[in-house]
């Protein structure tokens, strides 16, 4: 069974960056994308993810996700334009009635709103690309433990990631054994094929459940749960420099919240589109937000040099 994680260690500055900083940055971009409505602010959030994706050399994977975003964007535009008639610029008016929708009017404002929301989706998916392709699952688990999430749940997640290769190996072994016994798994119709997979699934399940006891016994023999405070074989060290990076990664979120409080980042689509120019102060704030969003890059670069030195 060929399986591969989305994470690939490409050794870039983004891969080497502290996982907390990446989590904080992705969280910031996602939350800002949800609270901002202004297309320029949403565009900035999306554009800010691009240099990070490029530096992480996850460009190809990012492009493959765009197909999904385009489809969803189409849905967003269609739904919004079919139900919102408050716009003043009517582009198309249906002459026939659609059940429950009446005579929909497609307005420019509704299409623009749909495009704005597509930009929001694009920014969110693009930000999560960074998380999916550059944070190792183990680091994600360690970060969860550090964040004081319930320990046993995080341990269960960590063990699950550990079981993946074991189970994949077991699956291959049991499939070979059943084939050697004459089971033809690729013959017949889909229903027959799936049914014959049962000859692999049930032994795999029984074997895995037996393995569960072995693992539990191994844990208990090493005094699992004997002490309330546990120790770690591998730790994510959060030094001063990392703390600075985390603060830098989270700063756009607080700045964005402040901007929302000041009244920036909102946008009126209906009844007619508001002027897109945010004004001189608005542009200044946009530039400041861009600097804060990209601050993570020089910090990541400097960290690598710091480690090399």
């Amino acid at each position, binding site marked *: 069974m060929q399986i591969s994680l989305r994470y690939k260690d490409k050794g870039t500055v983004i891969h080497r960056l502290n996982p907390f900083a990446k989590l904080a940055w992705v969280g910031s971009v996602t939350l800002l994308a949800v609270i901002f409505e202004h297309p320029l602010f949403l565009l900035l959030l999306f554009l800010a993810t691009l240099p990070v994706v490029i530096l992480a050399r996850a460009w190809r994977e990012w492009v493959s996700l765009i197909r999904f975003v385009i489809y969803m964007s189409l849905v967003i535009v269609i739904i919004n334009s079919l139900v919102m008639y408050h716009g003043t610029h009517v582009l198309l008016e249906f002459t026939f009635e659609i059940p429950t*929708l009446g005579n929909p009017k497609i307005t420019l404002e509704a299409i623009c709103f749909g495009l704005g929301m*597509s930009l929001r989706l694009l920014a969110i998916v693009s930000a999560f690309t960074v998380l999916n392709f550059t944070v190792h699952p183990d680091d994600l688990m360690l970060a969860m433990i550090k964040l004081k999430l319930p320990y046993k749940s995080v341990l*269960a997640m960590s063990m699950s*990631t550990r079981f993946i290769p074991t189970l994949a190996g077991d699956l291959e072994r049991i499939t070979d054994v059943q084939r050697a016994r004459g089971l033809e798994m690729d013959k017949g119709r889909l229903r027959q094929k799936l049914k014959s997979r049962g000859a692999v*699934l049930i032994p795999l399940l029984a074997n*895995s459940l037996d393995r569960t006891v072995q*693992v539990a016994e191994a844990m208990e023999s090493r005094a699992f749960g004997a002490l309330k405070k546990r120790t770690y074989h591998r730790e994510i060290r959060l030094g001063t420099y990392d703390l600075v990076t985390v603060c830098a990664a989270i700063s756009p979120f607080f700045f964005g919240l402040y901007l929302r409080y000041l009244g920036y980042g909102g946008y009126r689509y209906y009844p007619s589109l508001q002027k897109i120019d945010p004004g001189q102060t608005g542009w200044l704030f946009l530039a400041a937000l861009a600097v804060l969003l990209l601050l993570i890059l020089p910090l990541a670069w400097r960290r690598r040099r710091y480690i090399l030195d």
Partner: protein
Amino acid sequence: MRRGCFFLILIMSLGTFIYLAPLYFKGSLLDPNAGVLNWGLVATIFVSLTILGFFFEFERAAAGAKEIALVSMLGTISALSRLPFAAMMNFQPCTFFIICSGYVFGPVAGFMVACLTALISNLFLGHGPWTPYQMFIWGLVGITAAWLRKLPLSKSTAVVALAAFGFLWGWLYGIIINVWFWTYFVYPLTLKTYLLTLLNAVIWDATHALANVFFVGIFGARVIATMERFKKRFYWSIERDGVK
């Protein structure tokens, strides 16, 4: 048990309230179309806190290494079973595994297997704002599957009941998970826009419901029997009238 029930009722009431508020509190502060509250964020925070609440419940309920190892293993099997079916429009067996886990090992195990399914399979398929929703809904599948245990069902009727249960949850899954898409990207939040959002995913939900029936029908009895056998071999509890 009482505390667990209270917690669950609280979550369900709050969830139903958040779900219905956009439709009934027009013009008030709770109206998401009034622009005061971002309903997407409200729903995501609610879902995340609920998951956290259940993690704390697992912390209390999982007495030892055996329980942790069990849910990890079942979670991995369930997550891996999702991967080969990724391109088949939600025709996948992981909901079936979650149903069986909840039915045999109880609500907390069912919920944890569900959470692990979403977390682990998304390491391969991609995490996003949808991950907490998937954990939450599959978690509810695991919890409610455990409720079926209380019904007086024979082995054969149990499979039929689980298949019907799976069919229902296939649709409910779509009805709940589309909330994230609806609240984040669609305006205004009305019943009409919600139904249109559901309409967009109707094929995914239909295949999901059919897949649940299909997998429960073909593998349900055997998978449950295997899990029951394991449960009998490795778990014991003291009852009032003797040892079980």
